[in-house]
């Protein structure tokens, strides 16, 4: 009898298993493939490895501005793929070793809930006091004719491309679509991004989304917003543009980046009576499902679809299983888009604050206010927007665009999480010169006295 069986070895599942192991519990982790989940194998890690290469290439193109002369610049897809594979393998070994160190039994196979306290895997039934469902998500396929064409890739299969396509059509301007748009535009692909919405939805903040669209367009991507895809013919996209005119776009590949959906099928949820729908498994802020002893975390809950949110949810669930008071707080979970330039945010947007009837003050400062940003980003663009409560001056949201934002956004999340006020931030010392000083300036300029 295990204290806990985790189904799914992504960041939600393996962090939870390791945490329970460290608490001295008997834990099994069931994973069908290699440990690490979407994040490590098909998501966060490989895409960021790709993006590093495209960003470096873009930097090299303007090396002269830094006083460096380069010649014979080229892009070697094979080498980029190889580097990605190496990084993924290193990290996968790290996860395996984490499981070993934490005393977690890893079972390779497909787990399925058999009863409230039993999981069926590899023809055997394992008993457990607690079951944590962490089956993650997979790319969603919209109902568009021709989506099954072999030339239509999703965020998983596109990572296996061993060529740089000449022309790529990306359907969906969410963060996945925008990251691939940023990458392919910089390595020389003619990129066209389609979205049915009038604006890029990748960034929650409207001003950031606008600036991101401009920046990615400057890098060579074209945008067809308010566009309705009618069908896909091989690798040709048929669509109606914003004026409703029927058009076609011939590409070499089409990337379906319309979103992801929770993996709720085939896990025994119905038999166990777990409450879920197509949007995911319903959980409380303690990680509980409606069935006692069955818990869920990560993408399968359909809540945030972020690796770090999944890991935190998993740990919250484990703590509550074993009597440690804990709860998830979503208000300050940061989000990053690794486009070039990067986008990072934490807390609420202006739209959310207006909807909630919260009066706020805001300030927007250019990233260049921090000397280090100018040094590091020749010709770079960006700004930081800070939102604070009008009454108490408490920080409510930070929305930033500009390279370096991903590394300082945790600070904003921390301040929001601990409900710091502008006056408190004034007491904090930021290292100089760093890009994080832009965060400080934005907050301090959101004056409220």
């Amino acid at each position: 009898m295990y204290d806990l069986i985790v189904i799914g070895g992504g960041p939600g599942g393996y962090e939870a298993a390791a945490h329970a192991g460290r608490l001295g519990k008997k834990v099994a982790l069931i994973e069908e493939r290699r440990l690490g989940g979407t994040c490590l194998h098909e998501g966060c890690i490989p895409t960021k490895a790709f993006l590093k290469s495209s960003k470096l290439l873009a930097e090299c193109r303007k090396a002269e501005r830094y006083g460096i002369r380069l010649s014979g610049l080229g892009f070697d897809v094979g080498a980029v793929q190889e580097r990605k594979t190496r990084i993924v393998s290193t990290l996968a070994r790290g996860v395996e070793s984490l499981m070993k160190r934490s005393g977690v039994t890893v079972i390779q196979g497909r787990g399925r809930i058999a009863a409230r306290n039993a999981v069926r895997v590899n023809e055997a039934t394992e008993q457990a006091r607690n079951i944590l469902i962490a089956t993650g998500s997979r790319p969603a396929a919209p109902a568009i004719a021709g989506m099954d064409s072999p030339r239509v890739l999703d965020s998983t299969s596109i990572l296996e491309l061993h060529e740089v396509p000449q022309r790529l059509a990306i359907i969906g301007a969410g963060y996945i679509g925008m990251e691939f748009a940023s990458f392919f535009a910089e390595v020389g692909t003619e990129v066209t991004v389609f979205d049915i919405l009038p604006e890029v939805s990748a960034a929650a903040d409207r001003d950031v989304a606008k600036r991101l669209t401009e920046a990615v367009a400057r890098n060579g991507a074209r945008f067809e917003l308010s566009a309705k895809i009618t069908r896909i013919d091989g690798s040709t996209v048929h669509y109606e543009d914003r004026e409703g005119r029927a058009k076609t776009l011939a590409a070499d590949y089409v990337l379906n980046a319309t979103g992801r959906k929770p993996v709720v099928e085939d896990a025994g949820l119905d038999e166990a009576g777990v409450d879920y729908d197509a949007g995911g498994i319903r959980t409380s802020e303690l990680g509980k499902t409606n069935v006692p002893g069955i818990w869920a975390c990560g993408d399968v809950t359909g809540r945030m679809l972020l690796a770090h949110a999944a890991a935190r949810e998993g740990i919250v669930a484990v703590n509550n299983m074993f009597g440690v008071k804990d709860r998830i707080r979503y208000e300050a979970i940061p989000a990053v888009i690794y486009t070039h330039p990067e986008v990072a945010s934490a807390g609420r947007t202006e739209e959310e604050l207006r909807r909630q009837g919260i009066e706020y003050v805001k300030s927007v400062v250019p990233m260049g206010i921090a000397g280090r940003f100018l040094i590091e980003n020749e010709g770079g663009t960006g700004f930081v927007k800070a939102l604070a409560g009008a009454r108490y001056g408490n920080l409510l949201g930070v929305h930033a665009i500009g390279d370096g934002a991903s590394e300082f956004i945790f600070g904003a999340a921390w301040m929001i999480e601990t409900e710091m006020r502008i006056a408190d931030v004034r007491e904090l010392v930021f290292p100089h010169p760093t890009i994080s000083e832009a965060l400080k300036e934005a907050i301090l300029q959101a004056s409220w006295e």
Partner: protein
Amino acid sequence: MATPVEMPRPGITVEECLLVRWRSRKGEAVSTGQVIAEIETDKAGFEVEAPAEGVLLETFFEEGELVPVFANICVIGQPGENYEEFRPRKDARPAPVPGERAAAPPASPHAPASPPAEAFLSPRAKRFAAEHRFHPAGVVGSGPQGRVLEEDLRRLYHSAPRVSSLADAMIHEGHVAPAEGSGVNRMVRARDLLDAPVRLSGVREIIARRMRESLAQSAQYTLHASADATGLLAVRQRFKSAGENININDLVMFCTVRALVEAPELNAELIEGRLYRHPSIHLGFACDTPKGLIVPVIRDSQNLSPAELARRIRLLTEQALSGAIGTEDISGGTFTVSNLGSLGIEWFTPILNPPQVAVLGVNAIQVKPVRKDGEIVFIEHIGLSLTLDHQVIDGAPGARFLKKLREKIENVEELVSGEL
């Protein structure tokens, strides 16, 4: 020598008490052990006894005020003795020593008779207090005779809620912090405060009690009628042209006074089975202030002209809003008017202000179809809601008063003709 009387601490979690009532008034003689005041905590009522014999030289707080524990509430001594040295500072809350943590004492079933003195700390507790700069007041120890042990202080020290900067700001505005929050390491966050019950303010507490008493001790009913407001609107316009700032409500109050002069049975108070009719009309009017409902009183309103009445209403309203109104101006009313018409209310049931026996509600002005010379015309009417105590005023006399009031309002031009 004069003896100050402190607000006691009737429980270790109590930081301030509501001064409900003075049993003895300033200048009265009191004897040792005599109850001089009634106080209330969130949980129970208590009495304050005179610690010495003498005359109540001065009281420092009004009824209805929240008084910090251990603050001097009054002084007993011989007439002529100086008592100023005992007057508490305006903000008499015990000022926290910088760097010191505020104590959040856990609920204890043992309410102390009096706070233990410093000597009640064990040597180890003293050392803990010194090292941690932690000197909470009113701790009852678990040692013999309530001696405070190190363990008691340690538990208190660690049970004090840690709060976020935002929550801290909100606590200063009167929000109550739970012992444990939902933040990192159980830090108290803003939303934890919003979940917590809000303690009623002193003024609110008084209002609540008076409202309950009003409904429990009288037989209230409300009559609704409306009066042609054409005259009111015309008169207001005329005053305005004459440079006199008089509004509809002022004029309705003026008419009410005139009607009350002719109906003394409504300008009365019912106290312990006896009806006191008042020759003077001390007219109260409900005033919405940031602290809650306050009813300023215009003394001898029957002697005032419309302009004088309006000016008096304006002055008292300003004082009530700024909190600068004196006690004498919020007590002794004999009849009350409450106007919700300016907020668009069409009719309501005002609650009696006991021991008064009648209260008038003034409603919004609305057009009403009226048959006139065989035709339907639309005429502006002002709504009137009169609540009466059926113990002493039956329906017919109440209705007759309302009729009289309507006549005054409809003939207001005549009524004020000498004034313009």
